[in-house]
């Protein structure tokens, strides 16, 4: 087989693998996935707490994650935990940037 032909075969094989991979349903999340996602979210929320700036929506997402995990729905549990982590990180960003920015609003 010529090198050119071997390369073309490789490309076809790769494309086929990609098509099959895309068509296959994503792997269902496990309890371990939930635990990892929840730990990351919980840690970020604790950081927000140290900055005295937690959001109610983060707490709600954490509670939703726990409830979904208790019901055995780990896909939803991971999704909610990831949402909680994103919200907690946003609240940390807010608290950090407001350390100086609050002065813009001050009546002088």
């Amino acid at each position, binding site marked *: 087989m010529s090198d050119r032909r071997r390369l073309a075969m490789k490309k076809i094989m790769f494309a086929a693998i990609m098509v099959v991979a895309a068509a296959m349903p994503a792997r269902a999340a496990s309890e371990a996935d939930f635990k990892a996602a929840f730990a990351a979210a919980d840690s970020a929320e604790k950081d927000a707490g140290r900055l*005295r*700036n*937690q*959001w*109610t*929506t983060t*707490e709600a997402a954490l509670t939703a994650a726990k409830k979904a995990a208790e019901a055995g729905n780990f896909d939803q549990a991971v999704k909610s935990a990831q949402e909680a982590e994103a*919200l907690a990180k*946003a*609240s940390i960003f*807010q*608290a950090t940037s*407001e350390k100086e*920015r*609050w*002065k813009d*609003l*001050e*009546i*002088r």
Partner: protein
Amino acid sequence: MRVRSALSFVTAALALAALSSAAPGADTVDPAHEAKAFQDFFTKKFPKVKFEDFVNGPYSMNEDMRKQWEEKEQFPPYEFALEAGKEMFATPFKNGKTYADCFANGGIGVRQNYPYFDEKEGKVVTLELALNKCREVNGEAAFSYVKEEMASLTAYMAYTSRGKPFDIKIPNDPRALEAFEKGKEYFYTRRGQLNFSCASCHVQNPGERIRAEILAPALGILNAMPIYRSEWSGMGTISRRFTTCNSQIRGVPLEPQSEEYRDLEYYLSYVSNGLPISGPGARP
């Protein structure tokens, strides 16, 4: 030549020194100056509102609401709490003492002096905190800072102080100045998922509607506390007002009477110095 350049150097140095002593640096805290600027901001923004009327919150901003309120005041919704507070205030603790034993002038007509900075404890003491401290030193359990009992007691104490101008003092103590500064920082800091600060509503938008509500100006906002809120179907303390403000903007409220809230109350009360106590109040 050398003498001439030495002279120029000395002149420049003196000019610099004079400048730095005349103009306070950006970080210098001058509460009296800040209170004046705060009050000027509102009186210029609302030239038709009389200074004393700022304590009436949204009613000073909207004529229709004012008429409704004036009618409501004939049978004020806080009356039951006021009666309950008066009775509680006079009822002795198990040890025979009363609240009157814990306060100057027997607790009558003293609301305008709270909060104050306690130099011994190194912290801001609000009226709510002082009331619970009084209970505890007399062997009674503390009241919740956000429930009716505390609102009733502060309603009665405010009522006996009606018309007395806020007279908050900042002693010459760096910790007191720091508390004032921290209160100010809290007031202007955006928080919660909605990214609101206290100032977003009560400095930038007083008189405007937020849903069905008319926003009150920050100037004089604590003078009417505690308040009966129709929205709550009951009385609310300053602690209740602060914590609900936080949750409305999707922020997790801090513990009632936490250092941040006490400092905020100190700041907001100080910048309203001179305005009369009008509590207890009624709000939609």
